[in-house]
């Protein structure tokens, strides 16, 4: 069973790590074999739900894929993140829905420093959480992006 306090702490910590660009801290919240999934939308009503036959916006299995994404934005080799955009994640309506599943709604305000523009990505998170020792970790995260008309870029740290 997962407890309400540790769930709230974990989700707040993830938001904080992303906004502080504490990448190691963020990665440490995930299990090594985690899945990280942001479906695309099949039509107006339904997100895609079979990643092997339908397109996702992001689909990874294994933390090393997230490490690759972190490396990319840290490397300075991706002009899409130079200078890095500023973010503020807001996570709310956190609800434990099953023995190991949690849903929440999110909004991430993004400020493009270079272009002096703002955008807000919003949608829902769905988590599957597991205990590793005393620590509660993310075994699976699904991001349902509601406004999927993307202004140029939506990298992992803006979602």
């Amino acid at each position, binding site marked *: 069973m997962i407890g309400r306090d540790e769930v709230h702490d974990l989700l707040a910590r993830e938001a904080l790590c992303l906004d502080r660009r504490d990448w190691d801290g963020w990665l440490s919240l995930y299990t090594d074999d985690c899945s990280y999934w942001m479906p695309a939308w099949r039509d107006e009503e339904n997100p895609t739900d079979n990643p092997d036959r339908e397109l996702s916006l992001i689909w990874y299995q294994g933390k090393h894929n997230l490490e690759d994404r972190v490396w990319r934005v840290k490397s300075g080799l991706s002009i*899409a993140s130079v200078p890095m955009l500023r973010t503020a994640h807001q996570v709310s309506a956190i609800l434990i829905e099953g023995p190991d599943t949690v849903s929440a709604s999110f909004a991430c305000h993004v400020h493009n420093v270079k272009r002096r523009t703002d955008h807000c990505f919003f949608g829902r998170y769905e988590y599957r959480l597991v205990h590793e020792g005393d620590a509660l970790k993310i075994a699976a995260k699904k991001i349902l992006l509601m406004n999927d008309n993307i202004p140029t870029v939506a990298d992992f740290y803006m979602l």
Partner: protein
Amino acid sequence: MRWEEVSALVDDRVTDGWFSVHRRAFTDAAIFDLEMRHIFEGGWVFLGMASQVPNPHDYLTTTVGRVPIVVMRDGEGKLDAFVNACTHKGALICHKRTGSGRLHVCRYHSWSFDSAGQSVGVKGLRDGAYSDAFMQTDRNLSRLPAFADYRGFLFGSLVPTCPIEEHLGEARHLLDVAADQGEDGLELVPGEVVFTYDGNWKMQLENCADAYHFTSTHPSYLQLIEKRRREEKKNVVKSVWGENSAWSEMTEGITGGTYGFDQGHVLNWQVIPLSDTVPLAERAELLAERYGAARRDWMVNMRNMTIFPNLQVAENASSQLRIIRPLSAGKTEMRTFCIAPKGESDGARRMRIRNYEDFFNPTGMATPDDTVCYADCQDGHANALQPWILGYARGMESVQDGPDQFADVLGMKPDRSQPCGSQLCDETLFHSYYRAWLSRLKVGMERSA
């Protein structure tokens, strides 16, 4: 704006070794308006795929320039394209990206239309005290004067124009190479991805065909692909770029090239050897039996194709169909799909999708680096001190008229060819875009004069 002002934006003097486009062509709202009227709303544009509307009464919606369009299949299965607007007041008739319906009732005043675009009902017609003049007026949905299905690729035009075969010209061979990959043609993988960028639509036109930017713009992606190849971890996607070095400075000899066609279509291509990173590998022998090994090899090669003005099919790390929709001189919407042969195995489809997500998505590791550069260029096009873009010069001394030996394999006769090594990175193929750009503007401006 006078024609002389428009034509002055392309300085086409290749016999003097010079070709350039004025930056104003990318920034001027008056030019954008002419492009909408005479290019997008004044000739053939891509609408969608027949596979999106497989059954009688299916429809898909899109736009041609600024005009909402619906492509519908009638009860007999015949496809046609209409302005997606009630002829009464103009309200949209079909509201979803794709859908189905025998009868479309306008939500505003209940005028109704069948799936062949015919008006079948006007609410309160008998009690409306309508005049004879009204009763004799055509109330059907406005049918596009030109519509065509070329091997599942649907095109339409808001003005009467040449036959589609003439518009596609010799570039039709490239659509054939794409379509022949699947026994039953091509399909769009479910999941449309839409993004915008803060730049002119012609930036996308150029970038798709631009080999010169690849190693400069995408080092983060290329280094990760190389790292993944070395590490061979489970659950990482292997990419054709990791197995192939056609873009590398170490590669010698002819590694690919470009073609230009006089309707403004272009191709940028590279040799890709068959390997287990190619989704088509599972059907390589079958395709060679059917089409011959040389034509099969063309299916495997990297091919970035533009069918002027708004369709791109990029087959490289994966396979993407793009519909370019200009919103203003400085803003463009991209509607993108993973396009794939029907009937491919789960394994091949999975590999295609994973590579697509990493490379092509605005949430992936390559495309945002392109589109951010487009926006940077859009800012830089304000440079009136050097108003001429210096990006049409590479390959000027080596481009040849007519086909090369690789085009001969397809029986294709492009206007110009540039077979080349990895480091030439031809820019002369863009000339074809701007010649067609001017030609369509000229025809349109003369028509409306």
